[in-house]
């Protein structure tokens, strides 16, 4: 009993130590994001360390059904998002999905999502891969958020076309990224880690005119 408690504590200490040394792809822009944001107009922040899992399985197969029962469904077409609770599944391709869950869902923090998906996959044709370090997440919010994105994204972002609760793989500021509309005035942008610095600065630059004093 005492032994179990000790090993539990040491595992937690390990996790805490690991968390202290990890660095998110845009952590160096934390202050710049705060300085470049204007509450009530447009705000930018990094939402680091989300759990991201790459899932592949062909629609209609038993494997896909088993995976869907863990995630709360798999999207069937471009733009669709399925999921349950805090787990969202984004459509990346006809047989390719990105599972997005809070940081706590990651196994390093005691989460069991990847294990649950891997056991659902079992010997089936497909894959479940931990891609948490592959991308970071930016949150762009406010009434000017759409105008900022429209400077570098060719999708029709007008609300009559781009609905909250949908996500698309596309280009923003000339780099590939996933654009996820989480609310009427809130977006998540997921660039690959190596593009986080560029896209973070690009977004700041695009925000500048709105977050500056109006020229009379």
């Amino acid at each position: 009993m005492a032994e179990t408690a000790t090993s539990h504590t040491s595992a937690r200490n390990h996790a805490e130590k690991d968390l202290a040394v990890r660095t998110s792809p845009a952590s160096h822009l934390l202050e710049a994001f705060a300085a470049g944001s204007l509450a009530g107009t447009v705000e930018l922040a990094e939402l680091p360390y989300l759990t991201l899992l790459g899932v592949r399985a062909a629609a209609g197969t038993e494997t896909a059904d088993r995976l869907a029962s863990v995630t709360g469904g798999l999207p069937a077409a471009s733009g669709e998002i399925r999921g349950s609770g805090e787990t969202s599944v984004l459509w990346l391709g006809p047989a390719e999905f990105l599972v997005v869950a809070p940081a706590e869902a990651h196994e390093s923090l005691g989460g069991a999502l990847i294990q649950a998906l891997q056991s659902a996959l079992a010997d089936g044709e497909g894959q479940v891969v931990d891609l948490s370090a592959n991308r970071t997440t930016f949150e762009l919010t406010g009434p000017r958020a759409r105008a900022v994105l429209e400077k570098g994204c060719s999708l029709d972002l007008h609300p009559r076309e781009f609905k909250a609760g949908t996500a698309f793989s596309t280009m923003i500021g000339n780099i590939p990224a996933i654009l996820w509309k989480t609310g009427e005035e809130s977006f998540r942008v997921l660039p690959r880690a190596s593009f986080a610095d560029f896209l973070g600065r690009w977004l700041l630059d695009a925000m500048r005119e709105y977050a500056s004093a109006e020229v009379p």
Partner: protein
Amino acid sequence: MLLIPCPNCGPRDETEFHYGGQAHVPYPKDPAALNDREWAELLFYRDNPKGAFAERWVHSTGCRQWFNMLRDTVSYDIQAVYPTGAPRPDSATTTSASPEGAVQ
């Protein structure tokens, strides 16, 4: 800028795609039997029609899927988008009714 109708994602900017060259170039049944000239033609020789051209495209920054497209090389009119492996659809009559050097 072309607006390419991806069969999975709908119309997207050309910059989201990559070009894969001429479609319907069959891999030889017995590659070892090819002589140098035949290899060169398989690898490097492509049609260059004035008019409808069947070509391969991949939606690189979207669904990452390949598909075939029938595009008019004069007007850039996209006449058809169809799955890889499917036969080439009939091309519509275009600006270039009898294109010089076109594959019949």
